[in-house]
């Protein structure tokens, strides 16, 4: 089946952006027709060529785009591989993910980014875009070959030392300037290292009682404040990864009012969980930046709703069991997120009335695609557009069971939680990689390459 992407799919009665139901025909990797025209065109095709998907009650959205994913390959294939991470992405409703550079070896050269890119195309469950490291080995000392990575077959546009902060202000300035030459942008992990030496959790009331070294909000906010000013000074594009504090939202709001070209991301877990969860010392709640307070959660939700924060980024960070089954201070930081992002955003933003499905599509798909300048992701649900889209059952509820996840990581902080919403289908270039909520078949490599360059084979 995956070798015959020429087949058409007729989706019946789905509600684009949660609005009035429409039929939609996918053909040759693109949206061929909408509404009446969809059925009419489908009838002109041979019956065996058309797969019909009954989608009454389901919401149709552009496929989600994650600017912040850790796929662990190369180097930590016990934690995740491009293949397993891509499967998790497809199940979670993502048609593109951006693999952070902190692999081993670090993705700081054309060779590594090309390898990750190639593995992504081979897997065929989602599009995989490698993120290039800003500095060699994420060491924060000298710039990596950003130009070579940009010109490689992976065509890297996004550069980040995520996991580490580009804390040297001169180096950060140079990086912001240099990426202008390749039309790229820097995604900053904002964490002042000296203020967070040995930090284990949010510094505040809970850390005081638990006796865990604190990660103060100011360590994030001071870097963001510095970097928005640097971005303004050199006229470059800055993206702030995983914003976690109320103060950060204020600084970004201020920067945007001044016209600074900054975008910001929030993770699903920072929209829902607080540092109160650390009280039991379960390392599944250990993450960087740390879970913050209830007031921060409120500010992040408000910031995402009003546009101060632009996108959802999962910061999907799978770890092997032993990295979490140990003392809190010895445990690895990070949580899985690809397969729970959509339900968590529905719970925190849609079901609270803070945003509608149009805004949902913006923060999960349209804006992240625009930030990366993808031409074929995050597109309108209109005829002629690439068919990267998902069908969502917003009425469903699911109890999170990490054992059932496609990711290798079992470190989901949402384990046992009942969350609303479920991805029923994911179409990648028109091919259903997920159907009926389960993995279907991957897109073949040849058609994936063709679809990316908008030449769909007959």
């Amino acid at each position, binding site marked *: 089946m995956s070798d015959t992407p020429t087949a058409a799919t007729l989706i019946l009665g789905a509600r684009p952006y949660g609005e009035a139901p429409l039929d939609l025909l996918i053909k040759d990797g693109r949206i061929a027709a909408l509404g009446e025209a969809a059925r009419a065109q489908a009838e002109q095709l041979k019956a065996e060529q058309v797969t019909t998907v009954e989608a009454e009650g389901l919401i149709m959205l552009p496929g989600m785009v994650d600017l912040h994913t850790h796929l662990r390959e190369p180097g930590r294939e016990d934690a995740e591989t491009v293949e397993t991470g891509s499967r998790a992405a497809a199940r979670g409703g993502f048609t593109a993910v951006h693999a952070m550079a902190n692999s081993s070896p670090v993705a700081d050269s054309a060779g590594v980014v090309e390898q990750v890119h190639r593995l992504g195309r081979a897997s065929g469950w989602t599009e995989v875009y490698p993120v290039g490291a800003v500095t060699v080995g994420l060491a924060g000392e000298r710039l990596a070959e950003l130009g070579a990575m940009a010109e490689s077959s992976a065509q890297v546009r996004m550069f980040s030392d995520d996991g580490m902060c580009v804390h040297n202000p001169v180096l950060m300035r140079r990086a912001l300037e240099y990426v202008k030459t390749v039309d790229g942008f820097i995604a900053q992990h904002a964490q002042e290292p000296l203020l967070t030496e040995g930090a284990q959790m949010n510094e505040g009331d809970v850390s*005081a009682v638990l006796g865990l070294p604190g990660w103060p909000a100011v360590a994030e906010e001071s870097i963001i404040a510095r970097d928005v000013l640097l971005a303004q000074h050199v006229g470059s594009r800055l993206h702030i990864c995983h914003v976690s504090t109320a103060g950060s939202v204020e600084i970004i709001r201020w920067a945007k009012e001044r016209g600074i070209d900054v975008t910001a991301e929030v993770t699903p877990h920072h929209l829902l969980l607080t540092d109160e969860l650390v009280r039991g010392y379960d390392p599944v709640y250990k993450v960087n930046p740390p879970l913050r307070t209830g007031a921060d959660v409120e500010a992040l939700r408000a910031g995402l709703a009003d546009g101060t924060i632009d996108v959802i980024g999962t910061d999907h960070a799978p770890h092997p069991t032993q990295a979490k089954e140990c*003392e809190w201070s010895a445990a690895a930081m990070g949580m899985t997120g690809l397969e729970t992002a959509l339900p968590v955003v529905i719970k925190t933003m849609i079901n609270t009335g803070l945003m509608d499905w149009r805004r949902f599509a913006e923060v999960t798909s349209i804006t992240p695609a625009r930030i990366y300048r993808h031409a074929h992701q995050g597109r309108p649900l209109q005829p002629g557009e690439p068919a990267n889209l998902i069908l969502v059952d917003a009425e469903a509820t699911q109890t999170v069971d990490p054992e059932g996840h496609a990711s290798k990581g079992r470190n989901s902080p949402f384990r046992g939680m009942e969350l609303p919403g479920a991805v029923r289908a994911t179409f990648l270039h028109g091919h259903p990689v997920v159907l009926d909520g389960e993995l279907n078949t991957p897109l073949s490599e040849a058609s994936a390459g063709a679809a990316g360059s908008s030449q769909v084979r007959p």
Partner: protein
Amino acid sequence: MRHLLSTADLSHTQALSILDTAEEMAAVSTREVKKLPTLRGRTVVNLFFEDSTRTRISFEAAAKRLSADVMNFSAKGSSVSKGESLKDTVQTLEAIGADAIVMRHWASGAAAQLAGSGWTDCAVINAGDGTHEHPTQALLDALTLRRGWSAAHGEDPRGTDLTGMRVLIVGDILHSRVARSNIWLLRTLGAQVGLVAPATLLPVGVEKWPVSVYYSLDEALGSGPEAGPDAIMMLRVQAERMGGAYFPTAAEYTRRWGLTDERLARLAAHRGAAGQRPMILHPGPMNRGVEISAAAADSPMNQVLDQVSHGVSVRMAVLHLLLSSSERNTA
């Protein structure tokens, strides 16, 4: 009570039960036959991931006086330092037949994790976890304070608490598991608690704690004889905090926060509501000349040696109460 992880978990009733039991244990310790058959046939493991000879010996003496079998597992220099996980270590001890694990660990929360992990059915006693808590130290301090407080009021200590007592805790609150455990327990027992420290050694969020906070020891000691504390607990200053990271020099620390001879004299002039002198406590080992002067260390107001003997009584009480309430049946 299944485990002892934090004094914050102890109700007033439970705290008094431990202290009252410890009084009986202390009485036993004065008899010719100091041994009790209470925990005959049960096994207590001292699992120490961090050196602490004093605490280990105290627990060992407590367990042996109750006739338990004691195994000491020092995780330093063992397979643990070669990467064996806490889980594997503990499951090994469980398989050997331990009934209680007394654990000292460098990581905050390690005892709570162990108790909540499902890796073992043993009773878990926190013998100090990172910079979190050290509940048995707080209990022995409370036993010491209660002895003095009830004696001043002409009462039998059994069944009484510390209502109305004013206790100052002086020093590195931020990194002190002793301070945290003491604060919660002293509040549960009705004492008023004052913390005295440089602002660098107080945790962010301390203003929400049920305590008074002073940056100046002189201010906390008050001026008139009525104004002073009923007890002052001097915390040990760790060498690694000195040298400019948290305060400029040891000498400046001593001048501002040390129990110097001059402050000792002021303290000695204080009289509590019942006419008693203030008590001086220190969890040991003392840094003479840094947080406490030699004269204060040797003062008759100093309770350090009583604290040590009360440590054994309190640990006997905790072992008795936890192990005899254990519902686990080891066939």
